[in-house]
């Protein structure tokens, strides 16, 4: 098909939305919102079309969708897009969450609507770009451009300490991505600037196992050094301990929709980076560092969970829980077995839905209470008796909470179980320790739930109203997702398994 193909449509549709928002009059809030919503719905519909046309038996990139147009021929840089089983779940998730985020922002955002929706749509496009790029340069561009809207979305529409959080988020990520940039360019020369130097697919397969370079007078393995570089770049995004501290700040300060995007999609970009780039390009080093990654993942799980338990701000608690849950993804990746990696990818998707639910819910209550204290700094209860006052909200909260906890029958369980199954034989000790992460994970969520929802109704809480129709509307798809994929994960697993299998068999040969 000449002209734009499906992937490009998905990629550029939000940009059309951005332009539309920019041309709409500033005062017509409703038109802006509606336009943004329609745009995201179309985008999501396009991702569903992509899903329907996807051939789950193909292990590599789906040739039907591949795009490869020269961009900077001199450097062999292409506008190359593609989709495979690892990226498709992420694309679907992105399309879904952004659509819901527009709805969630409907009433919550009151300041500079126009800029907000323009930036949100821009963010959507960049996220798609990251998940679709097959050209390293393009990938990097999207990876970095993503920072811009995020910076402003946190910084302008965030909480009281938003600037600090935004700057921190920016600098952290920027630091990591610059190391990645060095890695990208190094790869460019390691392939002797061949026409495939920036082609992510062509770089894959462990072509750099024997190369070395000298750094500070010592000989270093090329593969190991740049694996570490890429690892740091992606690990910051995940975030892997000890690069995690931007996350609580960013989450707490960001407005609801942005927290959702951040936790739901952006964190996945890090692990997606491992799957798409770091592991396939440096499989030997990935193997070499597997146990280190596993230990880091374990630290993430336990450390994040323990820190979450100590939080008195519910959003911060969920932020730390993201640290913990992404630790499971890292564990799954480090296992490098089909169970583990499939589990990790599934966990990426599931965490995207469940944590999005949690952040939406916190946003909903925040809109009513304008605080998020479980326990106020003076020791009194911040909430209490929400269950009595807001029954629908509570039930949705329970669903989200248990999905996040990994209750069987909810989506989180399957992925966590697969991850554990995948890693048990390789890292028994780590598995045993990581299991306690599940325990603590349940503890902090339930404890939080108990303190917020049980007991007598606080006088303040009496004034809260239950979820509005709009809020229910955007929670329903997520509720459905966490339950349906908990019972029947095959729709997601089927599309990813071939691609994951390919990756695992590649790793197995090293």
């Amino acid at each position: 098909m000449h002209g734009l193909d499906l992937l490009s449509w998905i990629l550029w549709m939000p940009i059309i939305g951005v332009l539309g928002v920019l041309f709409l009059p500033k005062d017509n809030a409703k038109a802006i919102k509606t336009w943004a919503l329609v745009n995201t719905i179309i985008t999501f519909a396009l991702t569903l079309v992509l899903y329907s046309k996807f051939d789950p038996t193909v292990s590599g990139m789906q040739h039907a969708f591949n795009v490869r147009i020269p961009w900077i021929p001199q450097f062999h840089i292409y506008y190359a897009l593609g989709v495979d089983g690892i990226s498709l779940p992420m694309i679907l998730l992105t399309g879904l969450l952004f659509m819901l985020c527009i709805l969630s922002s409907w009433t919550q955002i009151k300041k500079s609507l126009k800029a907000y929706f323009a930036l949100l749509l821009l963010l959507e496009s960049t996220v798609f770009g990251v998940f679709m790029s097959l050209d390293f340069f393009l990938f990097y561009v999207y990876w970095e451009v993503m920072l811009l809207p995020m910076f402003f979305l946190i910084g302008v529409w965030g909480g009281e300490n938003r600037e600090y959080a935004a700057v921190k988020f920016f600098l952290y990520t920027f630091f990591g991505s610059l190391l990645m940039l060095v890695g990208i360019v190094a790869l460019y020369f390691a392939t002797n600037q061949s026409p495939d130097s920036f082609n992510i697919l062509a770089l894959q397969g462990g072509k750099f196992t024997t190369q070395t370079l000298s750094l500070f007078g010592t000989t270093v393995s090329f593969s190991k050094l740049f694996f570490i570089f890429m690892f740091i770049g992606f690990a910051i995004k995940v975030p892997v301990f000890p690069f995690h501290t931007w996350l609580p700040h960013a989450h707490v300060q960001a407005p609801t929709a942005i927290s959702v995007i951040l936790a739901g999609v952006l964190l996945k970009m890090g692990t997606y980076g491992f799957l798409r780039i770091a592991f396939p390009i440096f499989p030997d080093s990935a193997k070499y560092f597997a146990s280190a990654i596993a230990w880091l993942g374990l630290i993430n799980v336990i450390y994040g969970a323990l820190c979450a338990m100590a939080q008195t701000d519910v959003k911060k608690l969920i932020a730390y829980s993201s640290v913990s849950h992404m630790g499971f993804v890292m564990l799954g990746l480090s296992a490098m077995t089909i169970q583990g990696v499939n589990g990790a990818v599934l966990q990426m998707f599931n965490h995207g839905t469940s944590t999005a639910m949690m952040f939406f819910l916190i946003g909903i209550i925040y809109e009513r209470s304008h605080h998020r204290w479980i326990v106020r700094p003076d020791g009194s209860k911040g909430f209490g008796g929400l269950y009595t006052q807001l029954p629908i909200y509570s039930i949705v909260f329970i669903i989200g909470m248990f999905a996040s906890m990994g209750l069987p029958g909810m989506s989180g369980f399957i992925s966590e179980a697969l991850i554990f199954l995948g890693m048990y034989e390789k890292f028994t000790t780590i598995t045993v320790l990581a299991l306690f992460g599940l325990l603590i994970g349940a503890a902090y969520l339930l404890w939080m739930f108990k303190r917020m929802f049980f007991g007598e109704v606080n006088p303040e809480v009496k004034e809260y109203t239950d979820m509005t129709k709009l809020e229910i509307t955007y929670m329903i798809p997520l509720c459905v997702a966490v339950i349906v994929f908990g019972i029947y994960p095959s729709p997601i697993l089927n599309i990813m398994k071939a691609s994951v299998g390919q990756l695992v068999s590649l790793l197995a040969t090293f």
Partner: protein
Amino acid sequence: MDYTLSTVAPVVLLPFFAFVINAFIVKKFTKLAVAVSTGAIFVSFLYALRIFLDFLNVYSVGYNIHKTFTWFDLSTGSSIFKVNMGIYIDNMTSVMLLMVTGAATIIHIFSTWYMHDDPRFGRFFVYLSLFTSAMLGLVLSDNLLSVFIFWELMGFCSYSLIGFYYEKEGAGNASLKAFMTTRVGDVFFLLGILALWSVVGNVSFVDIYNAIGAGKFNNLYALGIPLATFAGFSIFMGTMGKSAQVPLQVWLPDAMWGPTPCSALIHAATMVAAGVYLSLRMYPLMELGHLLPFIAIIGAITAFGAATIALVQTDIKAVLAYSTISQLGYMVIGIGVGSYNASFMHLITHAVFKACLFLSAGSVIHSIHCQEMPQMGGLRKKLPYTFFAMLLCCFAIAGVPFFSGFVSKDRILGDALVMALAHPVYIPVALLGFAGAFLTAFYMFRMLFLTFFGEPRDHHIYEHAHHEHLGWNSNIPLLILSVFTLGLFYSGSFTGQGEVNLFGTKNEWFSTLIHRPDSNSLHHFAEYKSEEFGLVDTRDKVELPRAHFDESHGMSEKEAHHVHQIHKAGALASIFIAFMGIFLAYSMYVKRSIYPGWWTSTFSGWTRALKNKYYFDDLYVKKIIQGLLLPFNNLLAWFDMGIYDKYAVDGWEAVNRFAFNVSRWFDNNIIDSGMVDGTGASVNLMNAILRWIQSGKIQLYFVVLIVVLASYIWTIHI
């Protein structure tokens, strides 16, 4: 009978659909929702009954249905990974199914009366339906993973039902405690599953048995422990959590915050029993892992310890809760001493009489709106049917002959005695078991006497108590259940010794059909075939040999005789003990010839310990959680944000500023003051500051330029 999707699945799916439907309609159509739930479980009961009758009809030890379907499949290329789900029905399952659906039906019916005035009447049934379907799913599961899934779902329902009265702070605490405590066990259970999966390749029961039979576990180690022990222990930890064994027993008494029918169903009859069911299923693994003595001791400690605590409880439900823990302890002893079918039988009998006890207690509570026994008394006249049902149940639990409790508990104790005589390690087990039996009889009758006998202690309450009338959903269920406390339903005889046949029940059908899958008999699992789940039964309908009762249980005649003798002695002892207990209770609380206060004041230290439940709660909550975990968490969180983030991460900015300041300070102080001014040693401070302000910057620049240049030239050689 054909086992197809349409004949088996409804057992689980009907309550589940009821749950799904009710979840949406409950708010508007409460009555309809209740009807749907109750109807669903009743139909489900009929299906279960049909299955049970089929099994009873075939009457074969080897009869089983194993059907699987692929849940999801991750296989690509050469690597195979598949997760199968399926059903596995054997004799044990069919009995369990019948028990669960039966108890659930009765409790549903009872709840329509008991919960009627509750504002969340409908929602209760939603949870109940979900719970029932989860429990049935667990029972039907063919593998540990799905057991785990349903196990956790039940945990969730239990959590929700304990926290049913969410306005109460205590309910929140209790539900949290219940979920977290069982979660400790669950985590280990999951670990066990992982360990088994690594050996077997999946976790279906049959494959695990086969693997054990084929010796696949030999010479395998996990973390330096033999793998069988490791996995067995992990799974048994699951049992300990769910079945409230020491030291994870703390949650069950608190679980009484839930509505009484839910206590009856979940915390007495089914969910807590699921733990024991799991260990029974994994019996070969426990045996292989040499865990039996450990299990027996845990069970004995639980059985005795809980019984002692029950002595001092004044809350009627608390007594029942501790008695549940204690009885679960007996089941675990049964596993530990190899008394497989007695243990299972106790599971069933206990389910029945304990459900009945709870419902009776519920009836009492509903009638007087009070749970404290010291305020009751004399209710016999006002609640005759309840009293009757409770009396039968108390006989059963106390181990009075002809009642179901006697049949099952006696066999466990008998086997414990056999084992104690053979291995000294079991001696404390037997001793604690018998002592516990004595206490059981005592405290159950204490409860009964305090409630129904004597004079009303609180007249106000007594006056307001409703007179009981026979009602289809109020006390008929109790009576139905109380009928099934008779031992003959289980043993086919009154005494449990297999001598009298009645009503055409098969001779000792329970003992005949439920067979211990021990290492000797595992080989026949290799012949078990599994089929794809479908709408048609493709099973090869082979004629199975009908089972016959083997009095010697496969032992040689001499051994059997020896065992029989010991059993007989044990039975006599336990009968004696039961009556002793009842008599003691009678003399204390009815005749008042022994003054209980003397005991409590004489053993005041003990009493205090008992009242505080041996300080387990204190240890867990105050010491471990509040004393260790939370401070550690706070420390960690403080470290994360206060130290790590502040200094290590934001520190780079500080480092930059520091570098900036150092360079400035260096310019101003070292070069300027130090080298320019510092030469004049007598420069006073004021002068220094003045000069510092009016520093000859440009010349400083010159000096720096020259010095750097020199350093370049002297370091950069060609």
